[in-house]
């Protein structure tokens, strides 16, 4: 678990230019948000590809383009990353000649010129490391563990997390789900302080199982001498020793040592990475695997997945768009995705690929060619009911990655049916 890192995979004929172009700035940006680039960031190059597991840890691919033909090993690694749903940023020395610098499979994807100062921000966004997308919830029992909770809060905050402390949940009177549910899409991590008497089985069975279904990572700090409920076994355990507490005092006034807090925050990061990668696989990886053979998906580094005919060449007119989201669709996350669409420009039509057009989002949405895709497996009826209410106000239709018998209103036919119908449709016209 401690092996999980943010993997920045360098590909392409100009990959050796990475350090000169981005090495310093990227590491600075990592450090600025409270991470340690030496420990948390792994820059992967060809040669390490054999050991590299594209499903373990969170990956972003940088394709540094050039005129020389791409190494087949690079293209293979690219394919593996794309299958896992990792965002790929194609970067070229001259954006006006983009398509001559990248292999065919990357031509449909928006690229940048490598002196573009937005690139570090793109990388961080690919890792979901912007502050608003990096949130943690800490649940603890007030009478057992307040100083420890404060220590964990401070440690995670210094590491760049926005942290929400919650006592009410484990006190077993209020369900924690209301507070948590409102921010579910942006919450990656729950840190559970399993002090004696902290958890009760009702909370564990109802709340924790929902947290797991939603895909949050759960890090469980286990007090010395305390045996966790078996129901918590899907959490990542971190057993605490008396030596982790100042003066060996792990009673209600006990505080953690700095070393212990360091160990906890490093493990929290690894849990975040692993569960975020799994959440991304649930919607992007699985979506790409579901496509009918007649269709191809181009995963943009930020923004929607563009669906095109498989035989239409890199610039075929889109058949539709998918916005995969982490967590459940709510008004805010859908609005945010929808706003991002308005600024999207993609290359369409001309085989030389120099024409950038604005995508007609309205036309595609009206023609029922846009879907927000989410993983709703195991979500309980009361939350689906909330979604039904919200769906009346959402500007886009939603679809669950699985076929659900009682979909919220606003979910159209199953995702598979929708994809099949797009594959047999005439490509969308109506470009602005």
């Amino acid at each position, binding site marked *: *678990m401690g092996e999980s890192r943010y993997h920045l995979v360098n590909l392409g004929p100009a990959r050796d230019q990475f350090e000169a172009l981005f090495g310093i700035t990227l590491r600075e940006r990592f450090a600025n948000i409270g991470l340690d680039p030496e420990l948390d960031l792994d820059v992967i190059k060809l040669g390490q590809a054999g050991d590299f*597991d*594209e*499903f373990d840890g969170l990956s972003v691919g940088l394709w540094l383009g050039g005129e020389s033909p791409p190494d087949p090993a690079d293209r293979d690694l690219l394919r593996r990353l794309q*299958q*896992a749903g990792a965002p790929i940023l194609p970067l070229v020395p001259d954006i006006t000649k983009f398509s001559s610098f990248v292999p065919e499979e990357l031509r449909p994807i928006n690229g940048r010129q490598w002196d573009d100062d937005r690139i570090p921000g793109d990388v961080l966004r690919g890792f979901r490391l912007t502050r608003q997308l990096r949130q943690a919830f800490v649940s603890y029992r007030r009478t057992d563990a307040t100083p420890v909770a404060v220590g964990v809060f401070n440690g995670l905050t210094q590491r760049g997390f926005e942290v929400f402390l919650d006592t009410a949940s484990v006190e077993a009177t209020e369900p924690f789900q209301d507070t948590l549910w409102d921010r579910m899409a942006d919450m990656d991590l729950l840190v559970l302080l399993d002090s004696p008497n902290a958890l009760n*089985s009702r909370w564990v*069975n109802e709340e924790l*199982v*929902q947290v*797991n*279904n939603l895909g949050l*990572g759960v890090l469980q700090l286990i007090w010395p001498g305390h045996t966790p*409920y*078996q*129901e*918590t*076994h*899907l*959490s*990542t*355990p971190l057993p605490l020793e008396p030596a982790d507490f100042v003066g060996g005092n792990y009673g209600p006034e006990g505080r953690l040592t700095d070393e212990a807090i360091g160990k906890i925050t490093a493990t929290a990061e690894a*849990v975040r990475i*692993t*569960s975020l*990668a*799994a959440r991304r*696989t*649930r919607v992007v*990886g*699985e979506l790409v*695997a*579901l496509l009918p053979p007649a269709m191809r998906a181009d995963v943009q580094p930020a923004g929607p997945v563009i669906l095109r005919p498989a035989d239409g060449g890199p610039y075929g007119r889109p058949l539709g768009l998918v916005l995969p989201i982490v967590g459940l669709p709510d008004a805010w996350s859908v609005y945010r995705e929808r706003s991002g669409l308005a600024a999207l420009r993609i290359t369409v039509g001309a085989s030389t690929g120099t024409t950038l057009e604005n995508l007609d989002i309205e036309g595609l949405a009206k023609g029922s060619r846009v879907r927000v895709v989410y993983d*709703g*497996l*195991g*979500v*309980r009826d009361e939350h689906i009911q909330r979604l039904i209410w919200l769906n009346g106000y959402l500007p886009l239709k939603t679809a669950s*990655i*699985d*076929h*659900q*018998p*009682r979909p919220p209103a606003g979910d159209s036919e199953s995702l598979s049916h929708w994809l099949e119908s797009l594959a047999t449709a005439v490509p969308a016209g109506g470009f602005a």
Partner: protein
Amino acid sequence: MTGAPIFLSASVPFGDRAKRYPPEPVAIREAVRGLIAAAMPRHSIVFGGHPAISPMVWDDANSLGTVDTVFIYQSELFKNDIPKEANFFTKLVWTPQVPATPQKGDLAKSLEAMRDAMIVHRIVEGSKMLDPNAAPDLPTFAAGVFIGGMNGIIDEWDLFRAHYPNVPALIVASTKGATLDLMADPNRNPGYPPQVRQMLERDRRYRHVFRQLLP
């Protein structure tokens, strides 16, 4: 019309044995969910109750409307320890608590009885438990799926393979735990074709993996 059942053997390494079998709880979680999503409603599921996994299986099957085709086996030995979610299942199968013998303790004997009913004889009806001549209540398995686990999963693998040698048995090695031992053991590894082995060892798109590999 639901087809033949799939046997699921899944657990999460914990405690001292977690040193031998380092856990990957996220992978185990994703694999179990992926199986339920890919296999149901086409197949029913048979599994031994587990305190962390049972509630999630229930929620997932419930959201698909397929709770009625999940058969969950619980030993009477643990009657007081199981989560209340186990009782939400409509097909909860109790297997008897068996007293210790000079050779084996009551835990081992009761677990043996449960595995006998669940895997070997496919008995659901309480009165037929422990009757070696009882006819099965469930059709023969379409597949066996093995996720995470510790020593118990190895015992269940051996039992499943002994009685259903021609039924596809999937070692989901990307979930680590004892599945790594199964995959590495030349006497137990069934000899998957290279692409299948690669999928089982690396691919975390579990819905996709099971759609491809289940009959």
